[in-house]
């Protein structure tokens, strides 16, 4: 399995590694990858064996000709707090870092409470206090409800 992934090296782009198993497709959603937006190679591996992960499994996404902005990296952290971002330039690792979640999250997700003031057309950005980083637990700074199902509520 590992060999198969090695075969598909990318020349320039980003590898998102150590994604929590099962979250690979949600990472594609965050990247905005769909049939209309694919212009270069995207490789997805799901349930790949990994000794670094507690579950011994990981998902992995490689996307060619794209480097991620901070907001995209922050969203990945919310669904996969152990993920690693590897920037590849001309087949070499130019940069490698772990995603991080701060104490406060702004503008990355909407509140799952339909009665929350942030879902009522007010000119405000949804904000959350981070209660736990791994697994990520977010509490709305406005209505104080815990955000349920983070991946479904990412902006």
């Amino acid at each position, binding site marked *: 399995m590992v060999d198969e992934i090695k075969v598909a090296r990318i020349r320039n782009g980003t590898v998102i590694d150590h994604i929590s198993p099962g979250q690979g497709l949600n990472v594609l959603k965050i990247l905005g990858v769909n049939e209309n937006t694919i212009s270069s190679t995207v490789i997805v591996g799901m349930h790949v064996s990994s000794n670094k992960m507690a579950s011994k499994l990981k998902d992995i996404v490689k996307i060619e000709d794209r480097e991620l902005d901070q907001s995209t990296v922050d969203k990945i952290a919310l669904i996969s707090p152990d993920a690693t971002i590897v920037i590849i330039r001309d087949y070499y690792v130019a940069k490698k870092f772990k995603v991080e979640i701060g104490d406060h999250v702004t503008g990355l997700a909407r509140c799952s409470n339909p*009665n*929350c003031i*942030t879902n*009522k057309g*007010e000119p405000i950005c949804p904000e959350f206090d981070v209660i736990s980083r791994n697994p990520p637990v977010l509490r709305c*700074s406005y*209505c*104080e*409800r815990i955000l349920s199902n983070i991946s479904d509520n990412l902006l």
Partner: protein
Amino acid sequence: MNGDVSFIGKDIVSINDLSRKDIEYIMDVAETMVPYAKGEKSGRILKGKILGNLFFEPSTRTRLSFESAAHRLGLDVLDVSEMSMTSMAKGETLSDTIRMVDTYCDAIVLRHPHDGAARLAANVAKSPVINAGDGAGSHPTQTLLDLFTIKRSMGSIDGLNIVLLGDLKYGRTVHSLSNALTRFGAKLTFVAPESLQMPQDIIDSLTANNCKPYITDKLDDVIESADVLYVTRIQRERFPDPAEYQKVAGCYRIDNEALRNAKKEMIVMHPLPRVNEIAPEVDDTEHAKYFEQAFNGIPVRMALLSSIMGGEL
């Protein structure tokens, strides 16, 4: 009094924003306000200042007690009691309404149907904002008056056995109250039918604060050891089957028979309005504290207004 606590200009949005020390400070100030709240003394310490009393949702006790507290302190009150009478009916955002009202007054009291509306108002307004209940979210002044009532009746809150009964799932007062009580080391018991028990996220937050509540659906099992019985209304609209509602509501009706094994000094509280969950015969017993509890809204709200607006007796 806690001399190092300053409330001037502070927003009161959630009980979670207040430490035990803050809560004790407000209760101490409220105690000094009692004779003024009763009209036995006059102390118009905020004369010349203006309060915006914005109630975008029906309310009787909270709105009237804020208004009464404001008048006792000498405040002038800008009163809005219907959303349809404001520019919000024309589509104005709450943010803009608050920005506008903020320029007309020195402090804002807000009741609003949407959860988190008070936090938004506090972020937008330069003047201090007091949350008078936002949706199913916070109602911190109710929690403060509940704590004040327990303290006045029992002398102290620490270590008391407090039984919360009724609709614990949807009732916002019991959520904030149980969280606040953990700061006083109270022991909590939740009595409700399974369908209306305390939500798991509230129980988790209590457990994280070293409070492990006892959960049951039988009041009889716990009434003997209770120091406080806090009753809430079971709302008919929560039950799709009227017969099921009657069955549940009947089980939790508090009358003298239900209280036969209670301690003599045990108090019964209710945030009101009650429908039929407490029999009128209980009103005449020493246990009944719910009307006193409703009155306590005035000294507590006087304490908050004077503390955040900078008045001292």
